[in-house]
């Protein structure tokens, strides 16, 4: 019979914020945190974790290994056999976790096999979402640092191209093309390499995918077709980036002049209809909806004339507002 004390060490990988705060050796700080045993979540942890440490540090692989060893040692000193479950988080998303058995002396990554906790020798399959929900409860959304876009990719039409060229989020990757729409999601190619744009999603693993489509589809006779095509694209991205959060950006407002012209179906009325459909799609598909429309629209629901050269594409000042909104609303 194993004497198990399940020790959950929750290490918050809040990269940007922590890097700013961090001074000295992060590993030493982490060890110091463990030794102080300052943070206990006994009442809140829904599973078999008796003790839980929260360490706000950015650790590399070597540091993680050493941390595991220190944790073992500490539990050994207490003359208890310990199982250690380390969960590495970034902005509340589990990016990796390890189960370490002191008795067996090994440590395995559980990233791809789901959560497993050991209680008196029994193996229990845990619900990954439950842990996520607990953490969301413990750390309020407002307390989370602003969104980090370094592992993000933006896909979309000329609006995304504008965002890219603004240089406001240079750390992200961009897959965009003027005139791209969801009907051409799987056929549109890069201007130079002629590679399918959708295949660029495979370049690396992202934790956030932002999608901006709809402007070039406003003239479609059946908006439902837009949603159906959009869903196909989303499902494809989900299959290629299974760990990423998906954010759907609303269609931006246009100027009064553009609305009155109504060319290619670009009117305020259509934009509102499409945005409602997008919002509904996000609810159904469990995606995040970003209401950029409300960020840019004036009291009449229009893009102010001074906010754009062509009444459609926002100038840099407006793009800054969008980026700030996303920093505050795309933290997960």
């Amino acid at each position, binding site marked *: 019979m194993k004497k198990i004390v399940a020790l959950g060490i929750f290490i918050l990988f809040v990269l940007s914020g922590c890097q700013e705060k961090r001074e000295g050796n992060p590993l030493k700080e982490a060890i110091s945190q463990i030794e102080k045993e300052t943070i206990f979540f006994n009442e809140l942890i829904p599973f078999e974790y008796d003790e839980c440490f929260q360490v706000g540090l950015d650790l590399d692989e070597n540091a993680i290994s050493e941390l595991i060893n220190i944790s073992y040692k500490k539990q050994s000193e207490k003359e208890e056999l310990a199982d250690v479950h380390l969960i590495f988080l970034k902005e509340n998303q589990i990016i990796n976790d390890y189960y370490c058995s002191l008795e067996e002396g090994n440590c395995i990554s559980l990233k791809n096999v789901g959560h497993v906790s050991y209680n008196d020798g029994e193996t229990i399959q845990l619900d990954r979402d439950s842990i996520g929900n607990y953490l969301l409860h413990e750390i309020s959304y407002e307390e989370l640092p602003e969104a980090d876009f370094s592992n993000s990719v933006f896909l979309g039409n000329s609006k995304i191209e504008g965002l890219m060229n*603004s*240089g406001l989020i240079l750390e992200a990757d961009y897959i965009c093309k003027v*005139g791209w729409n969801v009907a051409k999601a799987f056929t549109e190619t890069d201007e130079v390499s002629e590679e399918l744009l959708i295949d660029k999603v495979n370049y690396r693993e992202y934790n956030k995918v932002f999608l901006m489509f709809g402007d070039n589809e406003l003239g479609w006779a059946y908006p439902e077709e837009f949603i159906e095509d959009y869903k196909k694209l989303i499902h494809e991205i989900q299959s290629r980036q299974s760990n990423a959060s998906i954010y759907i950006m609303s269609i931006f407002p246009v100027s009064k002049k553009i609305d009155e012209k109504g060319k290619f179906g670009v009117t305020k009325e259509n934009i509102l209809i499409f945005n409602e459909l997008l919002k509904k799609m996000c609810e159904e598909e469990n995606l995040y909806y970003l209401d950029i429309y409300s960020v840019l629209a004036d009291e009449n629901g229009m893009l102010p004339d001074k906010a754009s050269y062509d009444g459609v594409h926002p100038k840099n000042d407006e793009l800054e507002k969008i980026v700030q909104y996303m920093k505050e609303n795309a933290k997960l």
Partner: protein
Amino acid sequence: MRKILCCLCVSLFLFSCGKSSEKEIVLADLGNDLIETSVFEGDLNKYTDENAKKLAKLTDFELDEIILYVDSGALSEKIILIKADKEVLQTISERLKKENKSLQESYSSYNPDEVVKLKNAVLEIITENTLIYCVSSDYQVIEECIQSYIKK
């Protein structure tokens, strides 16, 4: 006699051109001159080094220097100034031509005014190691600006 004079004139012209092409181009200065012309409708954002390479989609090239001015309001306006080896510039030149053509297609149904700008883009290797690509509303002004800079 006239023929000889003509030959002399042509030789002198070519010689002077050759001399001017050897002028050391300072990309930042040329960029400033270009941006000060009033042939850009948008407010172009300026980038250098890695950011410029990334946004110009030229990360796979070995460049000595790059400056990019690009519009964020979905206009096609752009200035790319590059210093690199001659062979590299040739390859980049071909790539920019291809990109330009593709952009013309993208803009054709969407903003035809931009197609005109793209068709009239200036793409030149102005010295052995310097390339300029410029999409603006008046290519003649841009060409005059380049010549004026070279003759400075």
